[in-house]
């Protein structure tokens, strides 16, 4: 109703018709005036779209609801109205979450949080609760990004819930990609696909020891751990991964440490020990950043995302 009155009033002004607010002088409009009018139209449209989105949502037409919110978001972006943009993002996050699209919801909430932080709005705390309640574990780096300006104490309590155990087949290619970052790993991964993988790997492990190839030895330990992970022998795989980490640490192979930490974290995730998941994933990302290994970081993030995917 308010929007209709506004529009009516604007037309009155343009037509030059009588109005109790009209001045006696002939008004002249500048470009800026028309731009302001245009922005008012756009703002009105955005508000109407939000109302439409609400009605669509109530009728469970989520697709149309999102379409209207996306258009409202575009308008507020154009108008540089950050507060309203964040509100729309919050609403989009809610709809995605109801539709169990947690990754999309998380992205919406993160964007909203970022904006609310920027404009110093207390709404960011509501968004914070929503992010936490989705139950996604984040790395220190992401926490830094998301919780900009929030005290470190708060970031320690990021992960509160245990997500569901991953479907191993979905993450196996990611694990291979992670291990594949190590020298010679591609060749040794082929042993894992042989008829007697553990026998082949142990044979190669023995040979590596014989020729003093410590990097190969450690890589083979990771792959032996991977083979055991495939067989759901998670505790055994964890032992291999930890031994690999110790070996890599002894030979000062940082990349090996980073890869091992990722796999240790993965094993803990399957076991359900979330504290150790987070600490190992954080350690891994920190090492990749120390090495300025953007590719490695990217591969690590893909594994983590695959683990937490719906």
């Amino acid at each position: 109703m308010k929007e209709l009155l506004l529009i009516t009033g604007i037309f009155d002004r343009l037509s030059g018709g009588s109005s109790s607010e009209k001045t006696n002088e002939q008004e002249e409009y500048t470009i800026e005036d028309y731009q302001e009018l245009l922005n008012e139209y756009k703002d009105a449209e955005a508000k109407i779209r939000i109302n439409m989105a609400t009605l669509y949502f109530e009728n469970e037409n989520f697709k149309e609801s999102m379409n209207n919110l996306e258009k409202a978001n575009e308008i507020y972006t154009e108008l540089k109205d950050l507060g309203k943009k964040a509100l729309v993002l919050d609403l989009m996050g809610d709809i995605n979450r109801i539709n169990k699209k947690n990754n999309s919801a998380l992205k919406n909430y993160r964007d909203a949080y970022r904006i609310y932080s920027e404009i110093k709005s207390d709404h960011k705390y509501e968004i914070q609760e929503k992010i936490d309640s989705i139950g996604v574990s984040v790395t220190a780096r992401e926490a830094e990004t998301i919780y900009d300006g929030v005290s470190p104490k708060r970031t320690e309590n990021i992960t509160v819930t245990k997500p569901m155990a991953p479907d191993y087949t979905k993450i196996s290619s990611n694990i291979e990609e992670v291990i594949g970052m190590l020298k010679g790993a591609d060749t040794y991964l082929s042993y894992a696909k042989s008829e007697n993988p553990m026998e082949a790997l142990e044979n190669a492990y023995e040979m590596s020891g014989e020729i003093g190839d410590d990097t190969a030895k450690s890589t083979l330990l990771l792959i032996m751990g991977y083979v055991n992970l495939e067989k759901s022998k998670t505790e055994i795989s964890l032992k291999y991964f930890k031994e690999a980490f110790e070996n890599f640490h002894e030979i000062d192979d940082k990349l090996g440490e980073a890869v091992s930490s990722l796999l240790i974290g993965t094993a803990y995730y399957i076991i359900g020990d979330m504290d150790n998941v987070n600490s190992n994933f954080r350690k891994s990302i920190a090492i990749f950043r120390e090495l300025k290994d953007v590719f490695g970081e990217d591969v690590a993030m893909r594994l983590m995302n695959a683990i937490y995917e719906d």
Partner: protein
Amino acid sequence: MIKFIESGIPGFNELTLFNNNEGGIPEKSIILVYGPPKTGKSIFCNQFSYHGLLNHEPCLYVTTDQSMKQLQSNMMDFQWYIEDYIQKQTLYIIDGISHLSGAKLIETNNVKSSSVGNPADMMVKVGIGSRSVYKKSNHFRSVLDSINTLLAFNPDQMVMRVLKAYIRRISEAGGTGMIAYTEGITSPETEKNIKSLFDNTIRLDGQNILYESRFEDANELNNFKSTYSITDNGLVVN
């Protein structure tokens, strides 16, 4: 009593006659064939392996300087056609160099790809390969041509261990082997250590061939020296 096998190089057996009037390559020994670049070391090794194939002795060939395709081509230059032996699986090839150039090698039961940068894998395949050729005959030959690329890609100490592992595997399986090495590509100390691994060495300098042999029950070194030339049919000792 030491037994010998035919070298396949004309004039070599006659050059290396021992007290028992036998000459050639001591059976079940591993020989270092070394010398400056481009003196015929690979030709010597190829000739040795081909002669064995002709006499129904299977061969395990580890090539690290040339791809399998190049090996086939180079052997053909001397009319040594190995395709048939590959088909019959009496020639077992481990190609350690194609992988580096990104070339895809089609692996079969007796053609395997490895990498000089991955010596552990290479030695695993040597183990598997030596068992495979041993099953065909306990009189088999083996060639590793050459150490050069291994030294380029790996620390010297590791290469030394690789050589020891290779020598041990071939010896344990009862094979007779040759390893090629180009002088001067590594430090004098490493070179000295490499030579110390072998009781039998052959040096080719482009003109002269020097064969030094030390047996377990002999304190002195036996030296055999002559000249040689490279012909259309391979190396010939004069």
